[in-house]
């Protein structure tokens, strides 16, 4: 395992954070966390969604400034104001977002910007290629430096990102969920690269949601929960059970085996063996009348994509969908709407609302999408419908003609839900229904959804927040890496059981 440190290790950590605090608005993301990283180790930063992991990484790489606390390198206090300072100090960060230029070659991406070698004639392309090749060799990456980045598989592209981030002077490498978009085979080559860097004395800190990976690659790990440090130590001191209980803050209940999938009796919606290439595989589920089914999963597990596919946004490569026992095609949104499906997308500003248009127009946009286009939109029934929604859902707005951009996040979300209830769907799909919504609005949205369920609506909710699913759902399907990992009934579901399945525990 670790070659640089065992019992004691070198005296000084290459990077040390002390008493780091950070709050966003009213939410305190980090409440005084200590963290130390030694040269030549791979260090996993573990925690649930919202535990403060990403915030910690951003502070270590000087993307954001802590409210209080200090950073030190090799025992000397450092003041890094921005990522440029931190790069100069030898700290490299690879974020979750891809930052490669697809249209340029691998070699040019590795040395993007002013780092390309120059000769009197300008850029020295021969030396550039050579230097890029060397950087990729360090990571055991065999991508051709002349290939375009857009032709690379995700795993290779990830290695090119890392090759670009590190230089000869890199002492610390920070990776934010480097494996989330990689296949098992690609994860192996990433880990080979991480080991090779470890042997060169680079300290790597990374986030992963997959327990198995944490145990496979790391030397030490640190667990955060609710912005506080829970524990830190060498991996040998941890078992998977201890790791999960540290992350959750309590012991896990006995493992509940996932019950066999059964089509619900009289199911309104039945999905059988549905697959979408590159998104998810062999997903089956059934939703009865007046039932709320949740789909849980960590980022990238495919739960959002299941809903999007049911609304006709992705091409199915296998499986069938039945509504009230009849097979439906669901090729595009109009077909899905016609089949009685409503869809509240995960990001209301992208797929949900036209922000510059009024409350009224947004609220009726879906229910009138099949009306003749030369008809007048502001019909009495439309106005009456929206007025009713504003009253029933207590939407706070100056008038029906106010642009939705002027409403608060919670009220925007209520308009979005009203828009889809207005189509009189028999099935309502909601992706992250309370994202970016304050606590009060959250409770009201729950109340609206539960009332609709009681009125006989079948609802499917995808969420990465386990408490939300526990509050709403009659059954919860948990996905891991694009597959259904298990199903929990309301009485047997708790956060730990969801979490265990979502992390891919066997």
């Amino acid at each position, binding site marked *: 395992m670790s070659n640089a440190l065992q019992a004691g290790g070198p005296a000084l950590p290459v990077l040390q954070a002390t008493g780091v605090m950070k709050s*966003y608005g009213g939410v305190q*993301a980090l409440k005084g966390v200590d963290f130390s990283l030694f040269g030549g180790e791979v260090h996993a930063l573990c925690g649930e969604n919202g535990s403060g992991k990403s915030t910690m990484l951003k502070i270590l790489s000087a993307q954001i400034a802590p409210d209080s606390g200090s950073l030190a390198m090799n025992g000397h206090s450092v003041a890094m104001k921005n990522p440029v300072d931190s790069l100069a100090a030898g700290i490299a960060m690879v974020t979750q977002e891809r930052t490669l230029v697809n249209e340029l070659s691998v070699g040019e991406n590795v040395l993007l910007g002013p780092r390309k070698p120059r000769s009197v004639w300008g850029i020295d392309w021969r030396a550039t290629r050579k230097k890029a090749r060397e950087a990729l060799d360090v990571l055991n990456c065999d991508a051709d430096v002349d290939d375009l980045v857009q032709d690379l598989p995700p795993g290779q592209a990830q290695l090119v990102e890392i090759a670009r981030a590190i230089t000869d002077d890199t002492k610390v490498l920070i990776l934010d969920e480097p494996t989330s978009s990689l296949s098992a085979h690609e994860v192996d080559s990433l880990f080979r690269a991480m080991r090779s860097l470890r042997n060169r004395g680079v300290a790597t800190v990374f986030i992963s949601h997959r327990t198995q990976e944490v145990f496979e690659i790391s030397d030490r790990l640190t667990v955060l929960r609710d912005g506080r440090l829970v524990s830190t130590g060498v991996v040998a001191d941890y078992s998977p059970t201890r790791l999960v209980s540290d992350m959750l803050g309590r012991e896990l209940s006995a493992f509940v085996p996932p019950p066999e999938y059964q089509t619900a009796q009289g199911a309104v919606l039945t999905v059988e063996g549905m697959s979408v290439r590159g998104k998810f595989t062999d997903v089956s589920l059934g939703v009865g009348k007046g039932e709320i089914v949740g789909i849980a999963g960590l980022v990238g597990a495919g739960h959002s994509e299941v809903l999007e596919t049911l609304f006709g946004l992705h091409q199915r490569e296998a499986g069938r969908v039945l509504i009230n026992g009849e097979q439906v095609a669901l090729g595009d949104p109009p077909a899905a709407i016609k089949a009685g499906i409503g869809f509240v997308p995960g990001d209301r500003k*992208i797929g949900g609302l036209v922000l*510059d*248009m009024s409350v009224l127009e947004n609220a009726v*946009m879906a229910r009138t*999408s099949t009306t003749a*286009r030369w008809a*007048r*939109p502001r019909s009495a029934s439309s106005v009456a419908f929206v007025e009713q929604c504003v009253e029933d859902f207590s939407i706070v707005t100056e008038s029906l003609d106010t642009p939705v951009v002027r409403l608060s996040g919670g009220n925007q979300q209520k308009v979005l839900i009203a828009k889809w209830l207005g189509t009189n769907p028999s099935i309502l799909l909601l992706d992250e229904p309370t994202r970016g919504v304050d606590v009060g609005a959250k409770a009201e949205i729950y109340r609206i959804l539960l009332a609709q369920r009681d009125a006989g609506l079948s609802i499917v909710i995808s969420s990465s927040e386990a408490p939300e699913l526990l509050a709403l759902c009659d059954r919860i399907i948990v996905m891991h890496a694009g597959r259904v990992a298990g199903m929990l009934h309301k009485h047997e579901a708790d956060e730990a059981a969801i979490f265990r399945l979502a992390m891919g525990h066997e």
Partner: protein
Amino acid sequence: MLRNFVRQRFFVVLVLLAVMLVFFTLTQERFLTPENMSAVMTSSSILWVASLGLTFVMLAGGFDLSIGSMLALCGIGLGWFVNEAGLPLFVAIIFTILLGAGLGALVNGVPIGKYGLSFLVVTLGSLILFRGLTNLWSGTKTQQVISPFLDELAFGSTLGVPNPIIVMVVTFLIMLYVQKYTFFGRDVYAVGGNAEAARLSGIRTSRTLIAVYGLSAGLAAVAAVLQDARIGAASPQVGDNLVFAAAAAVLLGGTSFSGGIGGVGGTVVGVLFLGVLQNGLSVGGVESYWQQIITGVILIAAIALDLVQRRRTERSKSLRTPAAQPAVPAS
């Protein structure tokens, strides 16, 4: 009500237009006469009609570079329908408009709306294509189009109102109605404001876009009828600068390049602004290049002003809701 009017994006240009009217009235004796005001309007009629169509394209988040070529092509078409095919003028006009709308929908609308090609590339291609077709069809020759009705359309008047002004007002009112009181008009705003949200709402956004490019070309065809009527001939050389003037008018009128914001009400203010500026300066004997310089400066200034104003409102909004962003910080 008044506050909302002041908030309109074309308000600044409207104030400038009023200032200009006062200034020219005070400095030029021959400016504020019924004859001259009517000349301002009628000389703007082609730009007016074409700009209304371009407004819809820009509201939908696109652009149509080909309207000038389309104007020329449809002008030649009208001449051919009248002279060669010997159609009655009324039928010839209907055919001309159908020709324009059909070509616009097919050549511009389908590639852009259905197959998602870049509107700049497609309409640049059709700009060249339509110009080529115009020259092919006309043999690059200008041909007289003689018709008492066309004469009457360009130079006659009804109940004391010049006929071109009636055409202008009628097309404007129709477009205003379509923009505000039809689902199609609202789809245009939705597609321009947030195409993804429109699509997820079940709106057939490709149809909306095809219709918008058909409409833009159809109005260019209406402008072509006015053009032929004004000069009494079908000329292949017209319309070269139409798209620039129309884009300036639409932008001055507060319709944004990014789509979803603005409308035809602002566009007519923009057209009148350009028309009054040109007329006032030429009545005053100022060289025409001054008109270009002033138009250019005001266009950039008006848009910069608008941006400053929007940044300010955005900032005050973000100050009001500091905790809005990461309610749950990503881990």
